């Protein structure tokens, strides 16, 4: 499979994602420059973490206007799988591919540490190799991961099973005290209504290899692959 990883100026998890795509799930990773305008031949797209444009105005706000984003929006519109990790998730929000916005973490600081998330919906192209309710240990590394959306949108997210991950303790209890950043309803990751776009703040690509002491993140990538293989015709 051909998996495109968009490189924005200031992306810095692009190579990490490419490493997992090629070395862990054995697929072809293509680094795609943000000035390009086409995603020819890609089966799925990853918007990687980092600090696109330094996050100088708001996270993801400037990258959202990169030329490639039109192609990404188009790709998503045609049902292509798009995974946004951390800054990638923030870009998806700014681009309107996912609802809501990110506020500064409740403690105002950057937080880098492992957290637990519960898989709320295992019936997505990004979680189909997980069990529903499964607890994953994943690292977060962000200063603006405090997800916010208005009450109406939140109800819709909940009603449509669009909340894919919630912060929880290691036994899967999703309590406010396990919320690292103040995110509404302990949300760590959401998908769009159609289900083909996922944004999450934790970094699955950082825990997909044995040597790193944790392989929970691998599941996100194997799920992505599983759904692509089941859907191999989809070269948007």
């Amino acid at each position: 499979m051909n998996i495109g990883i968009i490189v924005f100026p200031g992306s810095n998890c692009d190579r990490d994602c490419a490493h997992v795509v090629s070395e862990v799930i054995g697929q072809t990773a293509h680094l795609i420059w943000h000035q390009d305008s086409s995603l020819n031949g890609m089966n799925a797209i990853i918007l990687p973490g980092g600090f696109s444009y330094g996050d100088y105005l708001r996270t993801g706000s400037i990258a959202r206007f990169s030329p490639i984003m039109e192609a990404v929006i188009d790709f998503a519109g045609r049902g292509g799988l798009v995974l946004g990790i951390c800054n990638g998730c923030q870009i998806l929000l700014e681009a309107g591919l996912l609802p809501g916005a990110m506020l500064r973490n409740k403690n105002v600081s950057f937080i880098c540490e492992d957290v637990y998330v519960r898989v709320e919906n295992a019936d997505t192209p990004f979680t189909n190799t997980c069990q529903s309710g499964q607890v994953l240990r994943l690292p977060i590394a962000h200063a603006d991961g405090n997800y916010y959306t208005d009450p109406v949108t939140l109800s819709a997210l909940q009603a449509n099973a669009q909340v894919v991950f919630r912060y929880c303790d290691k036994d899967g209890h999703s309590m406010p005290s396990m919320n690292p950043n103040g995110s509404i309803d302990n949300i760590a990751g959401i998908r769009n209504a159609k289900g083909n776009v996922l944004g999450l703040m934790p970094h699955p690509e950082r825990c997909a290899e044995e040597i790193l002491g944790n392989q929970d993140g691998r599941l996100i990538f194997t799920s992505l692959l599983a759904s692509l293989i089941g859907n191999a015709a989809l070269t948007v």
Partner: protein
Amino acid sequence: MTEDIKTLPPSHITPDLIQQHGLSEEEYTQIVTHLGREPNLTELGIFSVMWSEHCSYKSSRIHLKRLPTEGPHVVQGPGENAGAVDIGDGLAAVFKMESHNHPSFIEPFQGAATGVGGILRDIFTMGARPIALLNSLRFGELDTPHNRHLVKGVVSGISWYGNCIGVPTVGGEITFNDIYSKNPLVNVFCLGIVKKDRLLRGLAKGAGNQVLYIGAKTGRDGIHGATMASDSFDDASEKKRPNVQVGDPFLEKLLLEACLEFLEQDLLIGIQDMGAAGLTSSSCEMASRSGTGIELDVAKVPRREPDMTPYDVLLSESQERMLLVAQPGKEDAVLAVCRKWGIDAAVVGRVTDDGVLRIREGDQIVAEIPADAIAEGAPRYDRPSAPPQYQEILQALNLDTLPDVKDPVDALLQLLDCPTIASKRWVFRQYDYMVGTNTVVCPGSDAAVVRIKETGKALAMTTDGNSRYCLLHPYMGGGLAVAEAARNLVCSGAKPLGATDCLNFGNPERPDIMWQFIMAVEGIADACRAFDIPIVSGNVSLYNETNGLSIYPTPIIGMVGLIEREDDITTQWFKQPGDVVVLLGETREDIGGTEYLKIMHSREQGMPPWLDVEREQAVQQCALTLIQKGWVQSAHDCSEGGLLVTLAECCLTHPSTPLGATITLSQERLRLDALLFGESPSRIVLSVTEGNLAHVTQCIQDMEPKVPMSLLGHVTDTDTLAVTVQGEQHATARHLSWPITDLADRWHNGLTRQLGIEHS
């Protein structure tokens, strides 16, 4: 054209102006001799920054010669932007440490951030991709709002810059002492990886080659930063506003990627970052290293502000800028790469063969100086040195008048609570230590371990230095820093390959400070020689003095070691109940200079622990052998706080499940405080499985030279650290015990409590 400058009317260089530029009368006379005439103001500015302590190393250079800089692994020794060692498979590790002390005191956030930016540039100008940052910080005690403000500002500045550019900050150290209240230290270390045969250097070879400027536009920021870093502080210094530089990590990320692309396309002859003294020092150093000259037109330099004079442009320390040399014909390709990354770039001059730094503004020559006169011709001083009068008083500690510890249970809790020993999680949680997906051992163990994806090997790295030891005995303190750094690497399973240093001292014009400096350098040099660890790069920061009060002598050692096999990677925490706890090395009556003495008796006094280099080497060799045989579950070196703190850390630092231990210590002739809290070096606490114990004991017994070993007890799944002290004098043994939760509370929350932050 050249006539212009020589026929200028006698310039108005007054004694006042010379003094403002931080130059002495003799230095001015030397300038006139070098030029054969009086300098103009621009030239005076150039000499002033280039001959500053910061750029010229004029007080330190002759002493730095003592450091061993060669070895079979050394690919690049001192003298370039950074040093490099061979790590096998055709790769080299490029690393260096640098200080940003003065700027961080004036503006902690930006000062620390731009410090990170500077050291990163040193690494990627060598063509290496930076893969790890560490930092070594010193602050005053946290009982004043200002010190808390400095700590928060510095940590968030480092966090902002490092996180944004996407280089993981994988470790470091931070300690607190009031001597740093008015002069905190911010030392940053960076390591990168490059193909050995692709190493770039700061060269300006080949007359006719093009000189290019890339990166941020030049503003007036930081004019005279280098002179400032070479000056003592007084209360007015905080007002030195124009010196404040603002970092732009986003731009630096673009520069980094662009530079690596230049390398890939083989576009450059040489490259040098514009650090202290900006355009001036980068061009002089490149020319001087290559025996060439450089001609620059300041009018072509991209600028941020109107009405800048050549003086301003040459001396600006605007961040995120580089100077490149490329063959004619290649400049278009360089400019194209810059366009791709959205970076300003301009051809600003060319390499000449006359050895002269010639600066024009359009048609007009505004400065003309032999490059060698500025770089190599800089003054070199053998400043007078003498031990301070107070040295003997400091070293005198009469143990007869020091009551032994009464309540060891409370003493351990107090030590774990003190910010120098307590967990630094509040600090490193703000650093992205995982980006790059190479960090195998995250902050929280003796050394950070970063894998090299290309080779399956890994590098361990650490920074260490104990300034109290250095105050009490600078020679010993220097050696102990080297020993501890190496020990930390060995505990992680690595063989030390090379080191860098950052030498932070007071005012070198004072003989006592100069003495501290010379002694410490000698201690470092002798220890490095004994352990066969070359120093491949480094940095000197002098004039760390405010209102006449100097900091403690604070040499910091950054060290890098190689781990050949993944299986050898070792961490400090106990792994499973039932494992046997073993101590390598020997506990002596080392109370002088300890953290215990400071916390429990408010004294910073005595002789620091004595380093026996042969013993140290034997212990390290032994630990590494056991690790490589696969027999070691955990290894942790004993440092600040002594044996009890080390054992408590072994119990507590497991990332998910803390364990207990049951320990028996035999007091023999030692004082109890020395046994529990003394800081004898050359000690390592190991844990091994019961099944491997016989192999381990046999192996240790077979070691030559002999390594003292004692079996201390077992790891347990109880919630208790239980220590029995068998005294010789006392018939009955003494039982001490701590609930792990109590230890954990003190250790986890000590730092945040003092910072006045609720844990979150």
